[in-house]
Protein backbone atom coordinates (compact mmCIF):
# COMPACT_ATOMS: atom_id res chain seq x y z
CA UNK A 1 0.00 0.00 0.00
CA UNK A 2 2.69 2.45 1.00
CA UNK A 3 4.71 1.54 -2.02
CA UNK A 4 2.00 2.66 -4.35
CA UNK A 5 1.69 5.99 -2.64
CA UNK A 6 5.44 6.37 -2.65
CA UNK A 7 5.49 5.74 -6.39
CA UNK A 8 2.79 8.35 -6.76
CA UNK A 9 4.82 10.87 -4.84
CA UNK A 10 7.98 10.18 -6.79
CA UNK A 11 6.24 10.60 -10.10
CA UNK A 12 4.59 13.75 -8.94
CA UNK A 13 7.96 15.19 -7.98
CA UNK A 14 9.32 14.14 -11.35
CA UNK A 15 6.50 15.91 -13.10
CA UNK A 16 7.05 19.09 -11.18
CA UNK A 17 10.71 18.84 -12.04
CA UNK A 18 9.88 18.59 -15.71
CA UNK A 19 7.60 21.55 -15.49
CA UNK A 20 10.38 23.45 -13.80
CA UNK A 21 12.72 22.57 -16.67
CA UNK A 22 10.28 23.97 -19.18
CA UNK A 23 9.70 27.17 -17.28
CA UNK A 24 13.39 27.42 -16.54
CA UNK A 25 14.30 27.24 -20.22
CA UNK A 26 11.79 29.92 -21.04
CA UNK A 27 13.24 32.21 -18.42
CA UNK A 28 16.74 31.40 -19.56
CA UNK A 29 16.02 32.41 -23.13
CA UNK A 30 14.10 35.53 -22.26
CA UNK A 31 16.48 36.45 -19.47
CA UNK A 32 19.64 36.30 -21.51
CA UNK A 33 18.06 38.31 -24.31
CA UNK A 34 16.85 40.98 -21.95
CA UNK A 35 20.15 41.06 -20.16
CA UNK A 36 22.22 41.60 -23.26
CA UNK A 37 19.73 43.41 -25.39
CA UNK A 38 17.73 45.23 -22.80
CA UNK A 39 20.76 47.01 -21.47
CA UNK A 40 21.58 48.26 -24.93
CA UNK A 41 18.03 49.38 -25.52
CA UNK A 42 17.91 51.22 -22.25
CA UNK A 43 21.10 53.07 -23.05
CA UNK A 44 20.26 54.06 -26.55
CA UNK A 45 16.63 53.38 -27.34
CA UNK A 46 16.82 55.35 -30.52
CA UNK A 47 18.79 52.77 -32.43
CA UNK A 48 15.50 51.20 -33.31
CA UNK A 49 14.57 54.24 -35.31
CA UNK A 50 17.94 55.37 -36.58
CA UNK A 51 18.94 54.43 -40.08
CA UNK A 52 22.30 52.72 -40.48
CA UNK A 53 25.24 54.86 -41.47
CA UNK A 54 27.48 53.91 -44.39
CA UNK A 55 30.07 52.21 -42.23
CA UNK A 56 27.45 50.43 -40.19
CA UNK A 57 28.76 46.92 -40.61
CA UNK A 58 32.29 48.02 -39.75
CA UNK A 59 31.28 49.30 -36.37
CA UNK A 60 30.24 52.71 -37.57
CA UNK A 61 27.31 54.65 -36.39
CA UNK A 62 23.67 54.18 -37.05
CA UNK A 63 20.88 52.02 -35.87
CA UNK A 64 18.82 49.29 -37.38
CA UNK A 65 15.88 51.21 -38.71
CA UNK A 66 16.39 49.43 -42.03
CA UNK A 67 15.58 46.12 -40.40
CA UNK A 68 12.69 47.51 -38.35
CA UNK A 69 11.06 49.09 -41.35
CA UNK A 70 11.81 46.10 -43.50
CA UNK A 71 10.10 43.83 -41.01
CA UNK A 72 7.04 46.07 -40.80
CA UNK A 73 6.79 46.54 -44.56
CA UNK A 74 7.01 42.82 -45.14
CA UNK A 75 4.94 41.39 -42.35
CA UNK A 76 1.90 43.66 -42.36
CA UNK A 77 0.91 43.29 -46.01
CA UNK A 78 1.71 39.58 -45.87
CA UNK A 79 -0.45 39.02 -42.82
CA UNK A 80 -3.35 40.99 -44.22
CA UNK A 81 -3.27 39.08 -47.51
CA UNK A 82 -2.91 35.78 -45.74
CA UNK A 83 -5.75 36.58 -43.37
CA UNK A 84 -8.15 37.44 -46.16
CA UNK A 85 -7.26 34.33 -48.11
CA UNK A 86 -7.41 32.20 -44.98
CA UNK A 87 -10.90 33.36 -44.16
CA UNK A 88 -12.00 32.54 -47.66
CA UNK A 89 -10.51 29.07 -47.57
CA UNK A 90 -11.79 28.31 -44.10
CA UNK A 91 -15.30 29.38 -45.01
CA UNK A 92 -15.24 27.20 -48.07
CA UNK A 93 -14.21 24.21 -46.01
CA UNK A 94 -17.54 24.27 -44.25
CA UNK A 95 -20.02 21.55 -45.01
CA UNK A 96 -22.38 23.90 -46.82
CA UNK A 97 -19.78 24.55 -49.44
CA UNK A 98 -17.70 21.44 -49.83
CA UNK A 99 -18.26 17.80 -49.31
CA UNK A 100 -16.80 16.03 -46.33
CA UNK A 101 -14.24 14.11 -48.37
CA UNK A 102 -12.89 17.11 -50.19
CA UNK A 103 -12.73 19.10 -47.00
CA UNK A 104 -10.74 16.33 -45.33
CA UNK A 105 -8.21 16.13 -48.12
CA UNK A 106 -7.83 19.89 -48.24
CA UNK A 107 -7.25 19.94 -44.51
CA UNK A 108 -4.57 17.32 -44.94
CA UNK A 109 -2.86 19.45 -47.56
CA UNK A 110 -3.12 22.46 -45.28
CA UNK A 111 -1.55 20.44 -42.52
CA UNK A 112 1.28 19.52 -44.83
CA UNK A 113 1.73 23.17 -45.71
CA UNK A 114 1.63 24.10 -42.04
CA UNK A 115 4.43 21.74 -41.25
CA UNK A 116 6.61 22.72 -44.19
CA UNK A 117 9.84 24.22 -42.89
CA UNK A 118 10.09 27.92 -43.62
CA UNK A 119 13.35 27.45 -45.47
CA UNK A 120 11.49 25.45 -48.10
CA UNK A 121 9.18 28.41 -48.69
CA UNK A 122 12.20 30.63 -49.02
CA UNK A 123 13.86 28.35 -51.55
CA UNK A 124 10.58 27.98 -53.44
CA UNK A 125 10.02 31.71 -53.87
CA UNK A 126 13.69 32.20 -54.61
CA UNK A 127 13.68 29.57 -57.35
CA UNK A 128 10.68 31.24 -58.96
CA UNK A 129 12.45 34.59 -58.74
CA UNK A 130 15.43 33.24 -60.61
CA UNK A 131 13.15 31.66 -63.15
CA UNK A 132 11.40 34.92 -63.96
CA UNK A 133 14.62 36.89 -63.79
CA UNK A 134 13.69 39.09 -60.91
CA UNK A 135 15.94 40.27 -58.12
CA UNK A 136 15.47 39.69 -54.48
CA UNK A 137 13.13 42.35 -53.25
CA UNK A 138 10.71 43.44 -50.58
CA UNK A 139 7.87 42.14 -52.71
CA UNK A 140 9.38 38.67 -52.89
CA UNK A 141 9.77 38.70 -49.13
CA UNK A 142 6.11 39.61 -48.77
CA UNK A 143 5.10 36.73 -50.99
CA UNK A 144 7.22 34.27 -49.06
CA UNK A 145 5.77 35.42 -45.75
CA UNK A 146 2.21 35.27 -47.09
CA UNK A 147 2.75 31.67 -48.12
CA UNK A 148 4.27 30.89 -44.75
CA UNK A 149 1.50 32.46 -42.72
CA UNK A 150 -1.40 31.20 -44.81
CA UNK A 151 -1.60 27.65 -43.44
CA UNK A 152 -1.26 28.85 -39.86
CA UNK A 153 -4.01 31.42 -40.05
CA UNK A 154 -6.23 29.10 -42.07
CA UNK A 155 -5.98 26.39 -39.49
CA UNK A 156 -6.98 28.64 -36.60
CA UNK A 157 -9.78 30.21 -38.59
CA UNK A 158 -10.98 26.80 -39.65
CA UNK A 159 -11.11 25.58 -36.08
CA UNK A 160 -12.92 28.70 -35.00
CA UNK A 161 -15.49 28.26 -37.77
CA UNK A 162 -16.03 24.63 -36.87
CA UNK A 163 -16.99 25.74 -33.40
CA UNK A 164 -19.93 27.72 -34.74
CA UNK A 165 -23.13 26.01 -33.59
CA UNK A 166 -25.23 24.49 -36.33
CA UNK A 167 -28.34 26.18 -35.02
CA UNK A 168 -26.92 29.55 -35.99
CA UNK A 169 -26.46 28.53 -39.56
CA UNK A 170 -29.77 26.69 -39.68
CA UNK A 171 -31.61 29.73 -38.43
CA UNK A 172 -30.09 32.05 -40.99
CA UNK A 173 -30.82 29.60 -43.78
CA UNK A 174 -34.35 29.24 -42.59
CA UNK A 175 -34.77 32.96 -43.10
CA UNK A 176 -33.74 32.61 -46.70
CA UNK A 177 -30.14 33.74 -46.66
CA UNK A 178 -27.72 32.74 -49.31
CA UNK A 179 -24.61 30.84 -48.30
CA UNK A 180 -22.57 34.01 -48.52
CA UNK A 181 -24.85 35.89 -46.15
CA UNK A 182 -24.70 33.01 -43.72
CA UNK A 183 -20.95 32.96 -44.11
CA UNK A 184 -20.79 36.56 -43.02
CA UNK A 185 -22.65 35.70 -39.85
CA UNK A 186 -20.44 32.70 -39.25
CA UNK A 187 -17.34 34.78 -39.80
CA UNK A 188 -18.39 37.25 -37.18
CA UNK A 189 -18.99 34.45 -34.74
CA UNK A 190 -15.59 32.95 -35.48
CA UNK A 191 -13.85 36.30 -35.25
CA UNK A 192 -12.22 35.81 -31.86
CA UNK A 193 -10.58 32.57 -32.86
CA UNK A 194 -9.69 33.86 -36.28
CA UNK A 195 -8.10 36.99 -34.88
CA UNK A 196 -6.07 34.93 -32.49
CA UNK A 197 -4.89 32.97 -35.50
CA UNK A 198 -4.00 36.14 -37.39
CA UNK A 199 -1.94 37.41 -34.52
CA UNK A 200 -0.16 34.10 -34.19
CA UNK A 201 0.55 34.14 -37.91
CA UNK A 202 1.88 37.67 -37.57
CA UNK A 203 4.15 36.60 -34.75
CA UNK A 204 5.46 33.74 -36.81
CA UNK A 205 6.05 35.98 -39.79
CA UNK A 206 7.87 38.67 -37.93
CA UNK A 207 10.21 36.19 -36.33
CA UNK A 208 11.07 34.15 -39.38
CA UNK A 209 14.44 34.50 -41.00
CA UNK A 210 14.82 31.43 -43.18
CA UNK A 211 12.15 32.37 -45.69
CA UNK A 212 13.16 36.00 -45.86
CA UNK A 213 16.89 35.61 -46.16
CA UNK A 214 16.79 34.28 -49.72
CA UNK A 215 13.98 36.38 -51.01
CA UNK A 216 14.40 39.90 -49.83
CA UNK A 217 18.07 40.56 -50.17
CA UNK A 218 19.38 40.82 -46.63
CA UNK A 219 21.25 44.06 -47.12
CA UNK A 220 22.05 46.88 -44.78
CA UNK A 221 20.39 49.71 -46.63
CA UNK A 222 17.03 51.29 -46.05
CA UNK A 223 14.13 49.82 -48.00
CA UNK A 224 13.29 52.30 -50.69
CA UNK A 225 10.45 50.78 -52.59
CA UNK A 226 8.43 47.69 -53.22
CA UNK A 227 11.04 46.21 -55.51
CA UNK A 228 14.15 47.19 -53.66
CA UNK A 229 16.07 44.93 -51.38
CA UNK A 230 15.24 44.93 -47.74
CA UNK A 231 16.08 43.02 -44.67
CA UNK A 232 14.16 42.01 -41.60
CA UNK A 233 14.95 41.97 -37.91
CA UNK A 234 15.54 38.23 -37.60
CA UNK A 235 17.82 38.17 -40.64
CA UNK A 236 19.83 41.05 -39.30
CA UNK A 237 20.15 39.33 -35.93
CA UNK A 238 21.39 36.15 -37.59
CA UNK A 239 24.03 38.04 -39.51
CA UNK A 240 25.20 40.37 -36.80
CA UNK A 241 24.99 38.31 -33.65
CA UNK A 242 28.62 37.35 -33.77
CA UNK A 243 30.23 40.30 -35.33
CA UNK A 244 33.72 41.28 -34.29
CA UNK A 245 32.59 44.76 -33.62
CA UNK A 246 30.86 44.99 -30.27
CA UNK A 247 28.57 47.76 -31.40
CA UNK A 248 27.27 45.65 -34.26
CA UNK A 249 26.79 42.69 -31.96
CA UNK A 250 24.93 44.79 -29.42
CA UNK A 251 22.52 45.94 -32.03
CA UNK A 252 21.70 42.33 -32.78
CA UNK A 253 20.96 41.71 -29.13
CA UNK A 254 18.86 44.82 -28.92
CA UNK A 255 16.91 43.70 -31.98
CA UNK A 256 16.36 40.30 -30.37
CA UNK A 257 14.99 42.08 -27.33
CA UNK A 258 12.68 44.11 -29.56
CA UNK A 259 11.42 40.92 -31.18
CA UNK A 260 10.61 39.34 -27.84
CA UNK A 261 8.78 42.46 -26.76
CA UNK A 262 6.79 42.38 -29.97
CA UNK A 263 5.88 38.74 -29.33
CA UNK A 264 4.76 39.57 -25.79
CA UNK A 265 2.65 42.43 -27.06
CA UNK A 266 1.06 40.26 -29.73
CA UNK A 267 0.23 37.64 -27.11
CA UNK A 268 -1.40 40.15 -24.81
CA UNK A 269 -3.18 41.87 -27.69
CA UNK A 270 -4.46 38.52 -28.87
CA UNK A 271 -6.07 37.86 -25.54
CA UNK A 272 -7.59 41.30 -25.25
CA UNK A 273 -8.91 41.27 -28.79
CA UNK A 274 -10.35 37.81 -28.33
CA UNK A 275 -12.17 38.90 -25.23
CA UNK A 276 -13.40 42.10 -26.88
CA UNK A 277 -14.68 40.33 -29.92
CA UNK A 278 -16.29 37.61 -27.88
CA UNK A 279 -19.11 39.95 -27.03
CA UNK A 280 -20.54 39.09 -30.44
CA UNK A 281 -20.69 35.55 -29.35
CA UNK A 282 -23.40 34.53 -26.91
CA UNK A 283 -22.01 32.92 -23.79
CA UNK A 284 -18.57 34.28 -24.68
CA UNK A 285 -15.59 31.97 -24.69
Amino acid at each position, binding site marked *: MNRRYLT*EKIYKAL*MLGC*LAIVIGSLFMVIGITFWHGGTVLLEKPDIVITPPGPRYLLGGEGGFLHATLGSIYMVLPATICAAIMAMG*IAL*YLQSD*YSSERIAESIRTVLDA*LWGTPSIVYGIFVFTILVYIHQRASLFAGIIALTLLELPIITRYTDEAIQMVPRQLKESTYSMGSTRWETAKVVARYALPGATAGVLIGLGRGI*GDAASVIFTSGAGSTMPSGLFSTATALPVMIFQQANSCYPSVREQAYAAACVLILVVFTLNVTSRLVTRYLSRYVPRGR
Partner: protein
Amino acid sequence: MKGLHGLRQRHRKEQITSNSMRVLMWAAVALFMTIFLLLVAKSSLLFSRHSILEVLFSSTWDPERGAFGLSSVILGTFAVTVLSMAMAIPVSLFSAIYLSEYAPWRVRSIFSTFINVLAGIPSVVFGIAALLVLVPFVSESLGPWLGVETTGMCVFTAGLILAIMVFPITISLSLESLRMLPIELREASLSMGMTQWETIKHVLLKAAAPGLISAMLLGFGRAFGETMAVAMVIGGKNQLTGLFSAGQTMPSLIVNSFGEMMSIPIEQAALIFVALLLLIIVTGFNILARIIKNRLKERWKI
Protein backbone atom coordinates in the same frame (compact mmCIF):
# COMPACT_ATOMS: atom_id res chain seq x y z
CA MET B 1 -32.85 42.19 -45.43
CA LYS B 2 -33.27 43.14 -49.03
CA GLY B 3 -36.52 42.27 -50.64
CA LEU B 4 -37.33 40.01 -53.55
CA HIS B 5 -36.09 42.48 -56.10
CA GLY B 6 -32.65 42.20 -54.57
CA LEU B 7 -32.70 38.49 -55.17
CA ARG B 8 -30.72 38.57 -58.37
CA GLN B 9 -28.11 40.76 -56.77
CA ARG B 10 -27.80 38.49 -53.78
CA HIS B 11 -27.58 35.49 -56.02
CA ARG B 12 -24.81 37.07 -58.01
CA LYS B 13 -22.86 37.92 -54.88
CA GLU B 14 -23.32 34.38 -53.75
CA GLN B 15 -21.94 33.03 -57.01
CA ILE B 16 -18.96 35.36 -57.07
CA THR B 17 -17.94 34.77 -53.52
CA SER B 18 -18.48 31.07 -53.74
CA ASN B 19 -16.35 30.80 -56.85
CA SER B 20 -13.55 32.93 -55.48
CA MET B 21 -13.41 30.92 -52.31
CA ARG B 22 -13.32 27.72 -54.27
CA VAL B 23 -10.45 29.05 -56.35
CA LEU B 24 -8.59 30.02 -53.19
CA MET B 25 -9.06 26.62 -51.72
CA TRP B 26 -7.78 24.80 -54.75
CA ALA B 27 -4.99 27.33 -54.96
CA ALA B 28 -3.80 26.15 -51.59
CA VAL B 29 -3.61 22.61 -52.91
CA ALA B 30 -1.96 23.88 -56.05
CA LEU B 31 0.58 25.67 -53.91
CA PHE B 32 1.77 22.50 -52.31
CA MET B 33 1.92 20.68 -55.62
CA THR B 34 3.78 23.57 -57.19
CA ILE B 35 6.35 23.67 -54.45
CA PHE B 36 6.92 19.96 -54.74
CA LEU B 37 7.08 19.88 -58.53
CA LEU B 38 9.29 22.94 -58.82
CA LEU B 39 11.79 21.48 -56.39
CA VAL B 40 11.76 18.21 -58.30
CA ALA B 41 12.24 19.95 -61.61
CA LYS B 42 15.09 22.07 -60.42
CA SER B 43 16.95 19.26 -58.74
CA SER B 44 16.69 16.92 -61.69
CA LEU B 45 19.89 18.38 -63.11
CA LEU B 46 21.80 16.76 -60.30
CA PHE B 47 20.62 13.34 -61.30
CA SER B 48 21.75 13.67 -64.86
CA ARG B 49 25.25 13.22 -63.58
CA HIS B 50 24.97 11.40 -60.28
CA SER B 51 22.87 8.45 -59.31
CA ILE B 52 20.43 8.87 -56.48
CA LEU B 53 22.10 6.10 -54.51
CA GLU B 54 25.37 7.95 -54.67
CA VAL B 55 23.81 11.16 -53.47
CA LEU B 56 21.92 9.57 -50.63
CA PHE B 57 24.53 7.17 -49.39
CA SER B 58 27.90 8.71 -49.98
CA SER B 59 29.26 10.76 -47.14
CA THR B 60 31.51 13.12 -49.05
CA TRP B 61 30.07 16.54 -49.66
CA ASP B 62 32.61 18.47 -51.65
CA PRO B 63 30.96 20.52 -54.37
CA GLU B 64 34.27 21.85 -55.66
CA ARG B 65 35.28 18.32 -56.46
CA GLY B 66 31.87 17.38 -57.72
CA ALA B 67 31.03 15.11 -54.82
CA PHE B 68 27.48 15.46 -53.53
CA GLY B 69 27.16 12.79 -50.91
CA LEU B 70 24.49 13.58 -48.36
CA SER B 71 24.56 10.68 -45.95
CA SER B 72 26.41 12.53 -43.18
CA VAL B 73 24.08 15.46 -43.45
CA ILE B 74 20.97 13.28 -43.42
CA LEU B 75 22.27 11.30 -40.47
CA GLY B 76 23.21 14.53 -38.76
CA THR B 77 19.69 15.83 -39.12
CA PHE B 78 18.23 12.64 -37.70
CA ALA B 79 20.78 12.59 -34.92
CA VAL B 80 19.99 16.10 -33.80
CA THR B 81 16.24 15.54 -34.06
CA VAL B 82 16.24 12.20 -32.27
CA LEU B 83 18.39 13.64 -29.54
CA SER B 84 16.11 16.60 -29.07
CA MET B 85 13.02 14.38 -29.00
CA ALA B 86 14.68 12.05 -26.52
CA MET B 87 15.02 15.02 -24.22
CA ALA B 88 11.70 16.61 -25.05
CA ILE B 89 9.36 13.63 -24.95
CA PRO B 90 9.71 12.69 -21.28
CA VAL B 91 9.80 16.29 -20.10
CA SER B 92 6.80 17.39 -22.10
CA LEU B 93 4.84 14.24 -21.38
CA PHE B 94 5.27 14.60 -17.65
CA SER B 95 4.49 18.29 -17.84
CA ALA B 96 1.34 17.67 -19.83
CA ILE B 97 0.24 14.94 -17.46
CA TYR B 98 0.73 17.18 -14.47
CA LEU B 99 -1.09 20.07 -16.07
CA SER B 100 -3.93 17.88 -17.16
CA GLU B 101 -4.47 15.69 -14.13
CA TYR B 102 -3.03 17.36 -11.09
CA ALA B 103 -2.94 21.08 -11.58
CA PRO B 104 -5.86 23.34 -10.73
CA TRP B 105 -7.23 25.10 -13.77
CA ARG B 106 -5.68 28.37 -12.81
CA VAL B 107 -2.21 26.89 -12.80
CA ARG B 108 -2.97 25.24 -16.09
CA SER B 109 -4.03 28.55 -17.54
CA ILE B 110 -0.90 30.33 -16.38
CA PHE B 111 1.34 27.64 -17.79
CA SER B 112 -0.55 27.72 -21.04
CA THR B 113 0.30 31.38 -21.25
CA PHE B 114 3.96 30.66 -20.62
CA ILE B 115 3.97 28.00 -23.27
CA ASN B 116 2.29 30.27 -25.78
CA VAL B 117 4.99 32.84 -25.18
CA LEU B 118 7.64 30.19 -25.68
CA ALA B 119 5.92 29.18 -28.90
CA GLY B 120 6.09 32.69 -30.23
CA ILE B 121 9.76 33.33 -29.68
CA PRO B 122 11.58 33.53 -33.01
CA SER B 123 14.19 30.92 -33.72
CA VAL B 124 17.04 33.39 -34.09
CA VAL B 125 16.45 34.45 -30.50
CA PHE B 126 16.74 30.82 -29.44
CA GLY B 127 19.92 30.70 -31.48
CA ILE B 128 21.40 33.64 -29.62
CA ALA B 129 20.41 32.21 -26.27
CA ALA B 130 22.02 28.93 -27.26
CA LEU B 131 25.21 30.70 -28.32
CA LEU B 132 25.43 32.75 -25.16
CA VAL B 133 24.34 30.19 -22.61
CA LEU B 134 24.36 26.63 -23.93
CA VAL B 135 27.62 26.65 -25.89
CA PRO B 136 29.75 27.78 -22.95
CA PHE B 137 27.78 25.45 -20.68
CA VAL B 138 28.51 22.44 -22.85
CA SER B 139 32.14 23.30 -23.49
CA GLU B 140 33.07 24.36 -19.98
CA SER B 141 30.79 22.44 -17.65
CA LEU B 142 29.10 19.49 -19.27
CA GLY B 143 32.00 18.44 -21.46
CA PRO B 144 34.62 18.21 -18.74
CA TRP B 145 32.10 16.55 -16.42
CA LEU B 146 31.57 13.84 -18.99
CA GLY B 147 35.21 13.74 -19.89
CA VAL B 148 34.86 14.95 -23.47
CA GLU B 149 36.67 17.77 -25.10
CA THR B 150 34.33 19.92 -27.01
CA THR B 151 34.08 23.40 -28.38
CA GLY B 152 30.43 23.54 -27.47
CA MET B 153 29.39 23.95 -31.09
CA CYS B 154 28.16 20.45 -31.55
CA VAL B 155 25.30 18.10 -32.23
CA PHE B 156 24.45 17.92 -28.55
CA THR B 157 23.98 21.66 -28.15
CA ALA B 158 21.80 21.76 -31.23
CA GLY B 159 19.69 18.94 -29.81
CA LEU B 160 19.39 20.79 -26.53
CA ILE B 161 18.09 24.02 -27.99
CA LEU B 162 15.80 22.13 -30.34
CA ALA B 163 14.26 20.31 -27.39
CA ILE B 164 13.41 23.65 -25.82
CA MET B 165 11.94 24.90 -29.08
CA VAL B 166 9.79 21.83 -29.44
CA PHE B 167 8.26 21.99 -25.94
CA PRO B 168 5.32 24.21 -26.91
CA ILE B 169 4.10 21.87 -29.62
CA THR B 170 4.50 18.66 -27.69
CA ILE B 171 3.15 19.98 -24.42
CA SER B 172 0.14 21.79 -25.78
CA LEU B 173 -0.92 18.99 -28.11
CA SER B 174 -0.40 16.31 -25.46
CA LEU B 175 -2.39 18.39 -23.02
CA GLU B 176 -5.17 18.68 -25.55
CA SER B 177 -5.23 14.94 -26.13
CA LEU B 178 -5.40 14.22 -22.43
CA ARG B 179 -8.15 16.76 -21.81
CA MET B 180 -10.14 15.25 -24.65
CA LEU B 181 -10.57 11.99 -22.79
CA PRO B 182 -13.95 11.56 -21.13
CA ILE B 183 -13.99 12.00 -17.40
CA GLU B 184 -15.72 8.67 -16.96
CA LEU B 185 -12.44 6.99 -17.74
CA ARG B 186 -10.76 8.53 -14.74
CA GLU B 187 -13.73 8.04 -12.49
CA ALA B 188 -14.06 4.38 -13.35
CA SER B 189 -10.43 3.72 -12.70
CA LEU B 190 -10.31 5.63 -9.44
CA SER B 191 -13.46 3.94 -8.26
CA MET B 192 -11.64 0.65 -8.51
CA GLY B 193 -9.05 1.85 -6.08
CA MET B 194 -6.19 2.84 -8.32
CA THR B 195 -4.09 5.81 -7.35
CA GLN B 196 -4.03 8.75 -9.65
CA TRP B 197 -0.69 7.84 -11.08
CA GLU B 198 -1.78 4.28 -11.73
CA THR B 199 -4.84 5.62 -13.48
CA ILE B 200 -2.67 7.72 -15.66
CA LYS B 201 -0.17 5.03 -16.40
CA HIS B 202 -2.52 2.18 -17.12
CA VAL B 203 -5.60 3.86 -18.47
CA LEU B 204 -5.18 7.39 -19.66
CA LEU B 205 -1.89 7.10 -21.46
CA LYS B 206 -3.06 4.13 -23.39
CA ALA B 207 -6.29 5.86 -24.24
CA ALA B 208 -4.68 9.06 -25.36
CA ALA B 209 -1.80 7.28 -27.05
CA PRO B 210 -2.72 8.23 -30.62
CA GLY B 211 -2.94 11.90 -29.69
CA LEU B 212 0.29 11.77 -27.73
CA ILE B 213 2.12 9.99 -30.50
CA SER B 214 0.75 12.47 -32.99
CA ALA B 215 2.00 15.34 -30.84
CA MET B 216 5.47 13.85 -30.67
CA LEU B 217 5.55 13.24 -34.41
CA LEU B 218 4.62 16.83 -35.07
CA GLY B 219 7.36 17.92 -32.72
CA PHE B 220 9.74 15.67 -34.61
CA GLY B 221 8.76 17.30 -37.87
CA ARG B 222 9.25 20.76 -36.45
CA ALA B 223 12.64 19.92 -35.04
CA PHE B 224 13.71 18.29 -38.28
CA GLY B 225 13.04 21.41 -40.31
CA GLU B 226 14.36 23.99 -37.90
CA THR B 227 16.98 26.12 -39.53
CA MET B 228 18.28 29.20 -37.80
CA ALA B 229 18.92 28.13 -34.24
CA VAL B 230 20.59 24.92 -35.38
CA ALA B 231 22.76 26.68 -37.97
CA MET B 232 24.08 28.98 -35.30
CA VAL B 233 25.34 26.27 -32.96
CA ILE B 234 25.98 23.10 -34.85
CA GLY B 235 29.45 23.88 -36.11
CA GLY B 236 28.88 23.30 -39.80
CA LYS B 237 30.94 20.19 -40.38
CA ASN B 238 29.81 17.90 -43.17
CA GLN B 239 30.81 14.75 -41.38
CA LEU B 240 29.24 13.14 -38.39
CA THR B 241 31.97 12.18 -36.00
CA GLY B 242 30.38 12.23 -32.60
CA LEU B 243 27.77 13.61 -30.29
CA PHE B 244 30.03 16.35 -29.03
CA SER B 245 31.61 17.18 -32.35
CA ALA B 246 30.34 19.57 -34.91
CA GLY B 247 27.91 18.30 -37.49
CA GLN B 248 25.50 19.48 -40.10
CA THR B 249 21.79 19.22 -40.70
CA MET B 250 19.96 19.57 -43.99
CA PRO B 251 18.48 22.99 -43.21
CA SER B 252 21.77 24.33 -41.89
CA LEU B 253 23.57 23.03 -44.97
CA ILE B 254 21.16 24.94 -47.18
CA VAL B 255 21.44 28.18 -45.31
CA ASN B 256 25.22 27.98 -45.06
CA SER B 257 25.92 27.07 -48.65
CA PHE B 258 23.32 28.88 -50.63
CA GLY B 259 25.25 32.04 -51.25
CA GLU B 260 28.21 30.30 -52.73
CA MET B 261 26.53 27.57 -54.67
CA MET B 262 24.32 29.71 -56.79
CA SER B 263 26.44 30.29 -59.81
CA ILE B 264 27.03 26.74 -60.91
CA PRO B 265 23.81 25.05 -62.00
CA ILE B 266 24.62 21.59 -60.77
CA GLU B 267 25.52 22.84 -57.31
CA GLN B 268 22.32 24.80 -57.15
CA ALA B 269 20.41 21.67 -58.16
CA ALA B 270 22.11 19.75 -55.37
CA LEU B 271 20.99 22.22 -52.74
CA ILE B 272 17.47 22.29 -54.11
CA PHE B 273 17.45 18.51 -53.85
CA VAL B 274 18.33 18.83 -50.18
CA ALA B 275 15.33 21.13 -49.75
CA LEU B 276 13.15 18.60 -51.58
CA LEU B 277 14.33 15.76 -49.37
CA LEU B 278 13.62 17.87 -46.32
CA LEU B 279 10.12 18.60 -47.56
CA ILE B 280 9.41 14.94 -48.23
CA ILE B 281 10.58 13.75 -44.84
CA VAL B 282 8.85 16.45 -42.83
CA THR B 283 5.59 16.11 -44.77
CA GLY B 284 5.73 12.36 -44.24
CA PHE B 285 5.91 12.82 -40.50
CA ASN B 286 3.16 15.42 -40.48
CA ILE B 287 0.77 13.29 -42.47
CA LEU B 288 1.52 10.28 -40.28
CA ALA B 289 0.76 12.41 -37.23
CA ARG B 290 -2.52 13.46 -38.71
CA ILE B 291 -3.59 9.93 -39.54
CA ILE B 292 -2.81 8.78 -36.01
CA LYS B 293 -4.65 11.70 -34.51
CA ASN B 294 -7.73 10.95 -36.53
CA ARG B 295 -7.71 7.48 -35.08
CA LEU B 296 -7.91 9.03 -31.63
CA LYS B 297 -10.88 11.07 -32.67
CA GLU B 298 -12.58 8.03 -34.07
CA ARG B 299 -11.91 5.94 -31.03
CA TRP B 300 -13.57 8.40 -28.69
CA LYS B 301 -16.07 9.74 -31.19
CA ILE B 302 -15.08 13.34 -30.65
